[in-house]
């Protein structure tokens, strides 16, 4: 599996650390809505197909990336900095 880091280019998956489901919304810091916090901390989507994920290029530039990956084929559809900008589409 190759992930295209916007800084470093296409790199092998062993350079990356999976940091979880990228669909989670963190409640406002002062929020007391326990249901929302519970969903954020414990609920994860697990689709068979395209999945929005967070990966860290921990063995490289250490940036966190938003990666759309097909969980059935391991195809990487796009990568972008989690901070925003520099989206790379790679579906052929």
């Amino acid at each position: 599996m190759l992930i295209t880091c916007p800084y470093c280019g296409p790199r092998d998956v062993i350079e990356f650390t999976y940091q979880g489901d990228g669909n989670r919304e963190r409640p406002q810091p002062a929020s007391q809505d326990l249901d929302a916090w519970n969903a954020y901390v414990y609920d994860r989507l697990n689709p068979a197909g395209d999945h929005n994920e967070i990966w860290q290029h921990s063995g490289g530039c250490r940036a966190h990336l938003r990666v759309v990956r097909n969980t059935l084929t391991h195809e990487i559809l796009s990568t972008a900095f989690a901070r925003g900008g520099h989206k790379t589409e790679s579906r052929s």
Partner: protein
Amino acid sequence: MSPRRAETGGRIDRLRTIRFTFDGSPYTGHAGDTLASALLASGVTLFGRSFKYHRPRGLLAAGVEEPNALVTVLRGEVREPNIPATMVEIYDGLVAVSQNRSPSLAWDIGALNQLGGKLLSAGFYYKTFMGPVFGPLKGTRFWMFCEHFIRRAAGLGKASIAPDTARYERMNAFCDVLVVGSGPAGLMAAKAAADQGARVILAELEARFGGSANWSDETIDGAPAADWAGRIVGQLEGNDNVCLLPRTTVWGYYDGNTLAALERVTDHKEVPAKGEPRQRSWAIRAKTVVLATGSFERPLVFPGNDRPGVMLAHAAARYANQYGVLPGERIALFTNNDSAYRSALALKKAGAAVVAIVDVRSDVSNEMSRLASEAEAELLAGHAVVATEGGKALTGLKVQRFDMMSGALSGDERSIHADCLAMSGGWSPTIHLASQAGAKAEWDPAKQAFLPPQPTQRWIGAGAFTGSFSTAQAIAEGRAAGLQAAGGSASSAPLPVVEAAPGDPDPAPVFEIKAKGKSFVDFQHDVTAEDVRLAHREGFVSVEHLKRYTTLGMATDQGKNSNVPGLAIMAEALGKPIPEVGTTRFRPPYTAVSIGSLAAERFGDLKPERLTPMHDWHIANGATMYSAGLWYRPMIYGLPGETVEQAYVREAKATRESAGIVDVSTLGKIAVQGPDAAEFLDRVYTNMFSTLAVGKARYGLMLREDGLAFDDGTTWRLGEQEFLMTTTTANAGKVMQHLEYFLDVIWPELKVTVTSVTDEWAGAAIGGPKARAILAACVTGTAVDNAALPFMGIVHGRIAGVPVVICRLSFSGEMAFEVYSGAGYGTRVWEALVEAGRPLGLVTYGLEALGTMRIEKGHVTGAEIDGRTTARDLHLEWMLSKKKPFIGSAMMDREGLISPERLQLVGLVSLDNRPFNGGAHIVEELDEENPHDSIGHITACCYSPALGKYIALALVKDGKARHGTRAFVSDPLRKRFGPIEIVSNHFYDPDGSRMHG
């Protein structure tokens, strides 16, 4: 000349004789021979004993799919078992032995198993070893009793016990086009892609490029096919953009078009050249793959089809054409398709007598009849072989009239005298890699074969792999695939012209001749057609269950020959068409892969060692080192004759009486910088950092998002926008990642950078009543008195000329200071401190004394912050700010996290004056024999020199309420039970007067 070697012909070098031994006997062969062809040339017919029945077995095939002729190759002490003799290239001094026989291949005691055939049918283990319900052999005991004998009797070669001394390599490669297989299709694809300028890798699992061109009787562009192939290979060799990999098996197709291959670099050499590895493991990332992996000929299933001398038709022709070896003098053929006629003709041309062609089809085309007469063979159309005769070699066979539609046999049996029977049951494309890469194979009823699935990755098929079995088709498809893979446009240039014998590629749908006797489907695992039907009668309907119950296709050859016949017989038993029965998916590896090649240079202890800047000093000064994660840290600086306990007690005592110094360079250190650094720290720590003055430090606690405690440490404010955070040694990496995650994903608006600076700083903690005096004696450029350096104050100065940062903070509970300097100057500063302390009684102390003093003080570490405890459990609720939200603040007050039933941190004192063990449980009742109802466990323990007692920290249910009560420690594994008192975790100097001075 050997008995079966022709005078001329073949692709071997008769001028080069090679000497080797098989089962201790000397043999010779020629350059270009495999072990199989050289032994066959010497008249050997018996190559192995079968897995269960120990039946004599000869060569079935000539290539990678060989199921019978498995040998062990010995190199010194190292033995490699289960290699097909067809894949071993001979070299001078080769030592090979046969397998699964005792005492010898010819006289094998295990052959008695043939008499017990009924007993050894499918499911033999399950049925025989269901022990009685009671008695001495109940349950699986009978199996355990028999296992040793059975394991010896059934099986393959023995694994090597000696360590593998060979060297292996790993290689990563990138290319535009990877071509797998170098038959006519693969060669054309490689050539076409290379001519487009693409970077091409051509992998061939055999020694010689060319595939079927090496042994077909065909001509291409007027030259023998092998010469044409040689010419193309020569052109490819001259290309800078082509990498040719002979003896390289592509064995795995993984996602992202990553393929794994094994190159056998020196297995065929007597002595490897300097620097050459035995094998090389390739990871190849290809933009496009051309699969030109060819096809396997299928055996027919009939009684006695495993007798030595019965082999695949193409293999017989291949031995004749490629190696100049006749597999027999009087050869019969048995077929359900036209391809065997070509083999018959090849064998005739090579000098054998072709006595008969037995064809299950009653109407054979005129062209085939003509080929039969050209081979001077009697054509027995509408017949089938129903038996074979002979022991360790074939002597004859019996045929009968056969009706293809009903499968019925009729008429009298007729005997035919023959010493070789060449059979063809049709062809199966080698779709393994395509199957690994994705979707399910599709059954083609005309071709009677599973064809490759639609590509789910970027590959293109060519040649027999796609079910196009003629060389002309292979050449056309190969060129088209190569052009397409290289991004070129289709070519209308003329293709090489193939002259080949005619033939219809589609076989008759006949897989089995049902007659009396054992008919083998899977030769290597000894699975018969009757075993498959038995499995069906016993209720196994899924092909996956059938496979596991009969072990069909589960031997080392993974059913390369047996898959399709096995499915066909299952389909017939179920009364369903083959596609409805389905096929199992192929998985890597395609052929056996040595563990050594996967490990390559990565063996032994692969962990890096992290050493502090003062490591050498510790070793030189008598430290016993202790590995903590990747770090090495001094455990004690023992004096001669001291036990570990004596040493740490001495070190801790001296520290509390005068002063001690410890290396703290391993603490995680993170520079947190930027305009929003203070705001960021307020969010990640439970307590306030924005209010911290420049030049002061503060102890901080972090929680996880779920509200449990995560890590603690001090953070120093070095400037308005600059902090130095310290973490526990073990959590340094995790905390760094935690901070990076929040800055990147959650709060990208914060202007903060975090940098790991653990390795940039050397740290020494010096503590004790004399610590300040020692500092005063060696620090220049700053005062270190209480006014200049109050508790949690920070000053900058120099020691031995080296700039240092000093912070007054304490883990030991004494008046203490942490001194940080650049890592490269760590030893110099350390030595200066030790020198200054010598007259004042300073000792160096290690992790044991550090742990002892922190237990005495009741400080927590990773043993208590174990991922299950909250700040309140550890009595750190005073650190939970109510003025701001922080990570974990919303979740930390959940019902389950504030229950009084939770385990809380307490101190324990041993009342029987015996040591504690970490992990021991606490119980309330005096019941040593039957300890029950644990109320908690010990997290850390030591002998406390300050208290003169054995003490411990523990997590105990509702612990705070139990202060002053008694209970028992229970540790049955280590035979420890005794009375304890539960006390506060702050054993020593609870108001901190020593620390504050």
